[in-house]
Structure formats: C-alpha cells, structure tokens
C-alpha cells in the first residue's frame, strides 16, 4: 500500500518538478539561508522533540528541574500505559484510538464514494449554474466548526445522534465531501473526456466508461484526496468534544485533551499518547508529501 500510493501519486497531474530558481547567488547568501532555516526548524520542531523526549522519560526525569535534555533514563512505560490500563485490560485511550480509526476511516470512505462521482459529474456535464453550485458546495466550508457546532448539537439532540459514532461520521463526511468534490474535480479535469467518448463508441455505457477508463486514471488523485480527508477527520477536535461525551464513543483528540486537568497531570502519558496520535498523520502526510502543496493548489484552485 505505502509504496503503491506514493508511486501512484507521482504519476498524478503534478508536472512541475523543477526546483524554484534561486534568484540571488553567492555563498554568503546560501549560508544565511541555511542558518535561517535551521533557526526556524529548531523553533518549529522543538515542541515535537520535547513531546517525543517526554514520552520516553521516566516520570522522575519528566518533572526534573532543571529539565534534562540528554541525560535521562529511557522507558516505554508511558506507551504501555496508552494501550493497557493499570488494572490489566484495555485502556480508555486505546478505545478512543480505535474510535478515531473507525470514525476517520468510515467518514473518509463515505466522502470519497460520494465526492468522486460528484466531481466527475461537475467536470463532465453541462449543468445549470454550475459555478454557483460549486461555490455553494465550497461555501459550506467557509464557517469554522466552532460556529456551527451549537446548531448541529441541537439538531443532533433532536434526532438522537449525540454521543454516537454515526453522528461524528456524518458530520465529518459532510465536511469532507465538498473538499473531495473540489479537489477531485481538478484531477478529473486533467483526464481528457475523449477517453469516455471513445469508450461509449466502443459500446460501453457512460457509467461503464467512467468506471473502466477514467476511474483507474484517477486513483492517484483519489489516494491523495482521501489522505487529506482522513487527516482532517483524524485531527478534528471541536465537533468531537462537543458531540461526544462517553469514553466508549470519544475519539482520540478529546480523550488526550481530557488527560490534562485534575490535580496531577501525567505528562509522560500525555506525550506518549500524542506521539501515537501523530504517527498515522505523519505516515500519510509522507505518502502524499508531493501533493500537500501542489495537490491542493493544482487540484482545487486551477480551473
């Protein structure tokens, strides 16, 4: 899976592999650049490094003053605590990680299944007020979750979706479908419609033509789009904390946030669960690294 996605992505519509031209030459400038980038990298990466360090420090070293950067004992106890409860069974955190996998996975699949054919239709067919429709679809993402969470909470309470996985899956799908349509439309636009014309003259129906000839060419784009949707659902915090309350349903972001508070904070456990939480996103982001910038701008912005 990992390799194939990456290979597939590289075959996608990203054509410009040339490095950006360096406008000013000179060794001094190069040194300055490296220095500046190093400073930025340290500033950006220090919290990550600190999180990773804390997750493998013994509790004694976690709370040591002055803080220990290098000279500490390595332990994996915190990681064990993430998955196994003190009484020996499955920990609450491991349940919330599983919930995150289910919610993010199902909502991504749904968004892809709904969004890809819609994107194809918007790309291929002449529709009345197509631009307005597309704008409307995009506009559903204009408002930040925090703004809409109260009305959604009230509606969910009416229909009994509060504190259910289905409720989260639906709201994440609703947020990911517009994104999928916009990003996939860019990819579909890149595939000549004539393949489908030719297939229809060969004797296939329009849907068969899409399924057999266009869809295989879209796989790289679908992979990239799905990863973006997955990352959104995986990271989502606001809806999760407002719409779920019980430990059985809760996803990882609110569960990890819930570790902080109370009289003492087990920073080692917080750090370890954060590391576990970050790993899938890092992996997927690595797989679609080429599309993280190019995919969004090319797929969604270019008409």
């Amino acid at each position, binding site marked *: 899976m990992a390799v194939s996605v990456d290979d597939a992505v590289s075959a996608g519509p990203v054509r410009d592999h040339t490095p950006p031209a360096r406008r000013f030459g000179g060794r001094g400038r190069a040194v300055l650049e490296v220095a500046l980038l190093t400073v930025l990298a340290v500033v950006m990466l220090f919290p990550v490094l600190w999180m990773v360090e804390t997750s493998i420090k013994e509790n004694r070293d976690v709370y040591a003053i002055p803080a220990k950067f290098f000279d500490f004992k390595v332990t994996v106890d915190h990681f064990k605590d993430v998955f196994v409860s003190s009484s020996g069974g499955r920990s609450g955190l491991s349940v919330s990680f599983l919930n995150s996998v289910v919610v993010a996975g199902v909502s991504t699949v749904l968004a892809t299944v709904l969004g890809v054919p819609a994107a194809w239709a918007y790309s291929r067919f002449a529709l009345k007020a197509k631009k307005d429709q597309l704008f409307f679809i995009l506009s559903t993402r204009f408002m930040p979750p925090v703004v809409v969470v109260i009305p959604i909470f009230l509606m969910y309470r009416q229909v009994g979706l509060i504190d259910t996985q289905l409720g989260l899956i639906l709201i994440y799908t609703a947020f990911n479908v517009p994104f999928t349509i916009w990003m996939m439309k860019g990819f579909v636009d890149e595939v*000549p419609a*004539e*393949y489908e*014309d*030719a*297939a*229809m*003259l*060969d*004797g*296939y*129906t*329009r849907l*068969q033509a899409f399924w057999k*000839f266009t869809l*295989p*060419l879209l796989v790289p784009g679908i992979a990239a789009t799905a990863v973006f949707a997955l990352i959104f659902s995986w990271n989502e915090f606001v809806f999760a904390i407002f719409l779920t309350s019980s430990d059985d349903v809760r996803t990882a972001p609110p569960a990890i946030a819930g570790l902080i508070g109370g009289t003492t904070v087990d920073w080692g456990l917080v750090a370890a669960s954060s590391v576990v939480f970050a790993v899938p996103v890092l992996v997927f982001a690595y797989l679609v690294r080429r599309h993280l910038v190019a995919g969004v701008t090319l797929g969604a912005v270019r008409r």
Partner: protein
Amino acid sequence: MGTVSVHGLCKSFGEVQALDGVTLDVPDGAFFVVLGPSGAGKTTTLRAIAGLEKLDAGSVHLDERDATGDTPAARDLAMVFQSYALYPRHTAYENIASPLRARRCSSSEVAAAVEQVSSLLHIERLLQRRPAQLSGGEMQRVALARALVRRPRAFLMDEPLTNLDLKLRVEMRTELTRIHRSLGGTFVYVTNDQVEALSMADQVAVLKEGKVQQVGTPTEVYERPANQWVAGFVGSPRISLLACHVEGDRLVGAEGWTLPRPRWTTVEDGRPLLLGVRAEDLSVEQRGNASLSGELYGLEPLGDRTVVDVRVGTKILKVKARPTVTGTPGERLLVTVDLDRAHLFDADTGLALSEAGR
C-alpha cells in the same frame, strides 16, 4: 452497411452557434468528407452523429431509423478521434480489442479480429506497447485499427491525419482510400484540409459557421462552387475574384478592364458581380480567349510550377505558370483568361450565377 442522414442539426455553446440547421445525407458505402475551416462545426456535426453531443434541434437517422435519442453505444458506429483518445493504461492490443470486449466477444474472436486488422494496417509488432511508447503515426494507426476492428454502420473520422507530419499524412491518405475500397463501409470524414477532401472523397460537404454551403463530388465543388466563399476556400492557390458588371457584350471590371461577356451567362446589365478565375485558368503565356493587363507583382516558384502574382488595379491575381517563367516586378504583363472556365458570383449574395448555359 449503413446510411447516415442528419436533418436540421442545431447546437449552440453559450453564445456560439456551432450548428445552424445542418442537413446531410450520406449514402451507403460513401467516403463522405465534411470540409470546413476551424470553427465551422465539422467536429460538432460528427459528434452529433456519434451521439456525444446533445442537440438543440434536429434529428439523426441511421439506416433510415431515427437514432436521435440513442446512446452512442446503441448507434453502432466507430470513431477515430483527432487526439486518437487511446486508453493510456491499455496496450495497443487491448485498445484495438476494446470495441469487441464491450460487446462481449469471445477471446478467440477478439484475437482473430485484432490480428486481421493489425495486418491490414501493418501494426502487428506494436500490439504489446502502450500509447506512450508509440509515435504519432503509430498511435494514429492503432486508433484507426480500433475503429476498423468491427464492422459498424459507419466509420466517423475526426481530422485523423491532422496531427501527422506531411509525409505521413500523404501516405495515410492513400492508405485510407485503399482501406475504404477494400472494406467498403460508410466513412464520414471531417477535415479542414481541402487536399484531403478533394483527393479522398466521393462526396464533399463544405461547412462554414455551422451552415452547409455546398454538397457535391470533389469535381463539382471545385469546378462549380456554389458561392464565392466555397470558391475561395477550395482550391490552392486561392481563386482570384474581381469586381465587375455586364454591359451588353462586355464584362467591365471595377479596375477599368474589359473582357468579352462569357457566352454562358445571361445576367442583366449593371448588376454588381464578382468574376472568379482559378490560377490554372489564367495565363501569362498567351493562352485562353481574353486578356487583362497588369503588372508583375511577385513570383512564387513551387518546383513543378510557379505562381505569378499579377496586379490588376488594386487586385492581385494568382496565375499558374510554367516553372521556367521569369520576370521583374513592375513589368507589364498581359494575362489571358479562360472565360469558359471562369465563374461569376453575385457581389451582394455571393451566390454563383447559373452556369446552365455552359
């Protein structure tokens, strides 16, 4: 195998009226060429026949049966696209086999048909390659093979030779004519290249701005253009057009020249006309039956012939001459006109005057 007839096709894309009442009848087994400049609606016409374009008005009949609402698949046609539209992930073999696979032929039937068509087009050694590994000419042959692998009602070809280099294009012209002769079958062939139209067609339909200007054999279209525009579009070098009118027995040009009135015309005096003469019906070497005087404007040696530009008043006449012809610009020349082969057009409507008297 099949007749194709379209009636009153209308199609607009936003503000642009691509088809404006196109009516065509393609007889069974014809090599029917739709000729026109870019934007004339040729491709739209073809796509309408194929069922790929939703029409604003008009009907498509295939084999005398109304097929206007049919899906492309149901129409039983094959098409060669200008871009070839070969499936990029499939080998040439699978591309060619696709129309048979769609119709659920057994793999032995598929293999036999693909083998036959690839030997017809000499592409046996390309079958395992993907489109990206083929040259333009090879892709063109594979696209052609995908169309020819079946015996559909008609073959539709959308400028299939346009993307080839000149040498290949000339070769494929002959090849396509050969294939049409050996397979039979109805071909509807769209092109903007008048040489293709004149050399390959049984019948030519000339299209301009979504309207049919003239339908006829290549000879008819060339020898008896229906209007001034067809006369100017078909033929190279371009036909020379001179404003004039009839006075009794004479044809008087706006540039002050006088020629005898062509015997075949009975047009009334004073009506504004355009005299159209093709380069081969003009001569600077004393042939023909009437003369115009002008001055040498330029020479265009083309190897087998030289085109002499002669200025008469403000107009430039294109005159076909032997390759040995020489002269210096500004030199006075006498251009003889073969009035029996000249054309007269109404200057207002552009329509050709009746040439019934000829």
